[in-house]
């Protein structure tokens, strides 16, 4: 099928895009085609959700987009930079400076306080944090009171909000979130998703989120559906019901 383009203003720049990306694990008999000729574009300032059943390749797509994994063929760009052409070291620097992450679990270093975790990518880069920006992010996630706490002293929802604040603190071009609400109760999950939504609306952040929760997907501007390594459908302005319906249709 033609390249899936997340709709937006025609003048908008692309935060990331994948062109005919194929990812194959293993060889011969054990060969698994995790991504099969996927092309997709993510415009800046948009919140995109990637959905699909287990093994559909949604996590692989995200890992490849984020420069955590290498693709077998095709091209991936973050901004204007083609990831394939980068060395391991350059990829690390790209992740450090241009990409933010929120994972499902184990998002924080247990030895660092919440504040130190938020500023971790900046500390790794040896950059001075933009105080005003970091303060704004911290206030936005409502963690002002908890800054000196260690992760073990925070609830799961608070930990994920720290992780989200960290992802934004370095002003990355794009944030990837991998099942960020997977380990949270629904109230905490909603709180986190609300923050992500606001960061897109208010700060123009670009977010790509992998999820299998229709409710989580409903916070996005746009949803891509993956199955067997291919983009099989997409939906703009999703609601939980519409997403659930489409999932039933695709699954059935």
């Amino acid at each position, binding site marked *: 099928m033609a390249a899936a383009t997340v709709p937006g203003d025609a003048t908008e720049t692309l935060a990331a895009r994948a062109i005919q990306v194929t990812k194959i694990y293993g060889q011969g008999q054990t060969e698994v085609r995790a991504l099969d000729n996927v092309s997709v574009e993510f415009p800046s300032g948009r919140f995109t959700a990637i959905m699909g059943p287990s093994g559909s390749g949604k996590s692989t797509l995200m890992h490849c987009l984020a420069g955590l994994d290498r693709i077998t063929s095709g091209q991936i760009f973050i901004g204007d930079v083609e990831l394939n052409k980068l060395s391991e070291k350059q990829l690390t620097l790209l992740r450090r400076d241009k990409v*933010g992450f929120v994972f499902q679990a184990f998002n924080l270093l*247990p030895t*660092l306080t919440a504040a130190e975790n938020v500023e971790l990518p900046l500390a*790794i880069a*040896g950059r001075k944090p933009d105080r005003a920006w970091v303060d704004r992010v911290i206030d936005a996630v409502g963690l002002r009171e908890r800054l000196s706490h260690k992760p073990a002293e925070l609830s799961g929802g608070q930990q994920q909000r720290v992780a989200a604040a960290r992802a934004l603190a370095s002003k990355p071009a794009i944030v990837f979130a991998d099942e960020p609400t997977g380990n949270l109760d629904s109230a905490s999950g909603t709180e986190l998703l609300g923050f992500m939504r606001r960061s897109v609306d208010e700060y123009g952040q670009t977010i790509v989120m992998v999820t299998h929760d229709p409710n989580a997907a409903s916070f996005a501007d746009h949803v891509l559906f993956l199955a067997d390594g291919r983009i099989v459908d997409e939906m703009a302005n999703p609601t939980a019901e519409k997403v659930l319906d489409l999932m039933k249709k695709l699954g059935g």
Partner: protein
Amino acid sequence: MGKATLKGLMAHKLRLAATALAIVLGVSFVAGTYVLTDTITASFDNLFKQVTKGIDVAVRSQETFGGATTGGETRDPMPESVLDQVKAVDGVRVAEGSVTGYAQLVGKDGKPVTTGGAPNLGVSFNQDSAFTAGSTVRSGRLPSRPTEITIDAKTAGDTGYKVGDQAKVLFQGPARTFTIVGIIGFGEADNLGGARLVGFDLATAQKVMNREGRFDEIDAAAEEGVTPEQLRDRVRAAVDPRYEVLTGQQLAEDTAASINDTIGRFLSTALLAFAFVALLVGGFLIFNTFTIIVAQRTRELALLRCLGASRRQVMGSVLVESVIVALVASLIGLGLGVLIAGGLKALLSGFLGADIPTTGVQFRPRTVIVSLVVGLVVTTLAALIPALKATRVPPVAALQPETAFAPTGFRKRRIVLGVLVTAVGVALLLAGLFRSEGNRLVNVGSGAVVVFFGVAILSPLIARPLAGVIGWPFARAFRLPGALARQNAMRNPRRTASTAAALMIGLALVAFVSIFAASIKASTTKILEDSVTADYILMNDNFQPFSPEAAQRLAEQPQLAAVAGMRIGPWKLNRVGKTLTAVDPAAYRQVVRTEVTAGSLDGLASGGLAVKDTVAKANGWTVGENVAMEFPRTGVEQVPIKAIYKDNSLNGDYLLGLPTYERAYADQADSQILVKAAPGVAPADSRAAIDRVMADFPNVTVRDQAEFRDEQGRQIDQIINLFYSLLGLAILIALFGIVNTLGLSIFERIRELGLLRAVGASRRQLRSMIRWEAVIIAVLGAVLGLAIGVFFGWTIVRALSSQGITEFTLPAGQLLIFVVAAGLAGILAAVLPGRRAARIDVLRAITTE
């Protein structure tokens, strides 16, 4: 259950490898020590069996005074008349007397031929072929004229002397020149256990070694049909009971045993002590590894408990794992021990210059048993506490999420226990040092070990703040990696502390040794400054006494104001062995400052005794009183006390007037000469005068005060370096401990490392983080070790103040170097773990649950 244990073992085999290595090294040191000493012992046994071949019965004086000047045994020579008594015994086919004494060959370069501690002997050769069977004439013949000598093949090889060459020989009396007529060996051996041998005919030997009319030993061969034992009993009945009568076999065993006692036992005790240190350090490492493994396997163990495994089975599974590791490691260690024996031998002969003879390598069952038992016991003991901890894992732990931090309970209990153990250790140490009863060395040693345990128990309490302080500069200097390293070192204080504890032991001993050495040096300097007014100190470098003729001739030199020869002699007070120094007070007072509290040293000019004040007080002696002194030659004599003096660390406990000494001792030889130059004579002139005289006594070295101090320092350094190299093993093992702990920690923190990589940390930053953590742990261990080492050094120097070690010196620069070296070693220890940390697969680290 057994299967689960084995599978677990295989799964952890990499983690256990470093642990096993610690056991391998410790056990190999034990095995190596036994192999080496057994081999040396066997060599001497063989050698003396060879030498005493053909001798059926030997007669000699009872050993009267042990621990004499030459370091060996002292036996008073027998009169020649004993030989006639032996010859008259029924069944004696032939009997001959022989003498042994000091004789030292001078090499072609004019320098006396030396050994690494073995004696320079002059011997007489028997005539009967039965007695000469032990030695083999390699070339030439045995000496038969007063101008002829033979030398041993080793000495011939070392000096390049050949049959027909002229060579000078030094005695306690005047030196003489001889013609070498033969070169001998002893069966396969080129010399007698490192000793240098010069052989004379009997009459010449008696003359040059001050044995005229006397023998040191009488050898007899039996007639056909008389057994050595029968002959021994008959000879024993015929001679004075003062004389010892042995069969040839007994003589061989006895001679070998006396050498083995001094060399073998000392050697094995010293080496085993180092092996023990290595194993102790290894024990800490095992404890640490098993503790970490149990912590990491909490869920697995809990699952086993859920499935119905009993506490006993869980404990058994950990212990069986440790036993298997111990067995495998001990067996490897045993094999390595044989190789290490060679290394140890090279190390010892390299440092001490000792000639250690070896025949075939001796590998005894005892070596195998002790090595395996030691390896097993140390390993299982160290694994016991982790095994007990494993039993405390509740089954529900399998169902709960992993706790991020190790529990930090039992703080109070730890403080009480730690303080208690440390106190017991210190008490033992002090008891060993300051009380005279009991086995002091064992007390000191066990006290030190207990102190180590006490501090190891306490150290987790201070590890967090201490690591914080040590890590602070790293966090400042190396930003994020430094800060993370600091926090990682602080996050599990028990683990950090027990890893550091292993290094602490090695560093404590190294620091102690260096403090002790520095204190000895400082004390020597102080004694020289305070008490010695002599300008020159003359002595033989093997502590061999030399001819008093040297002092007599020096005294004739106008450039010299005072020449004081000092003679050392053993004696007995109420059957307890003592040592005295004999001096001429007129000269001695000019070269050594002595503060006399009662009487006058001048009184010694006519003989008599001067005593140190503390000794006089202990015995209730006053000036004018007689002391019943038992001498080797004259027996008990009443000697008047002429003076009582204060300790100056030089006089020793007893000073004897020379006239009394000359009467009471057979051998008259100076051990040391102290010389003071005449006023107004330039140092170069006085030195030249001394050198001119001493050219005839090349076995005596002349040193001025500075040279003497340097030489003492050099000798101390030599021993210290040997200690350092042996302690190096313990430090090496401790470094494996750091490698191991970091490796295990990385395994545990794999997700953190993955996260760091995902959010942009470079491999280099991860490596640097691991590196600084290792350095912080190493420096922590070094600092703890230094603290203990300084304490040990201080107590021992205090305890030895009566032995002349009066100054406590902290070699600050050197101690600082140790800390820096420990830090550098930490960098080294972090190489492999750091590489592993940098190599982790980011994706797998963050996605695997």
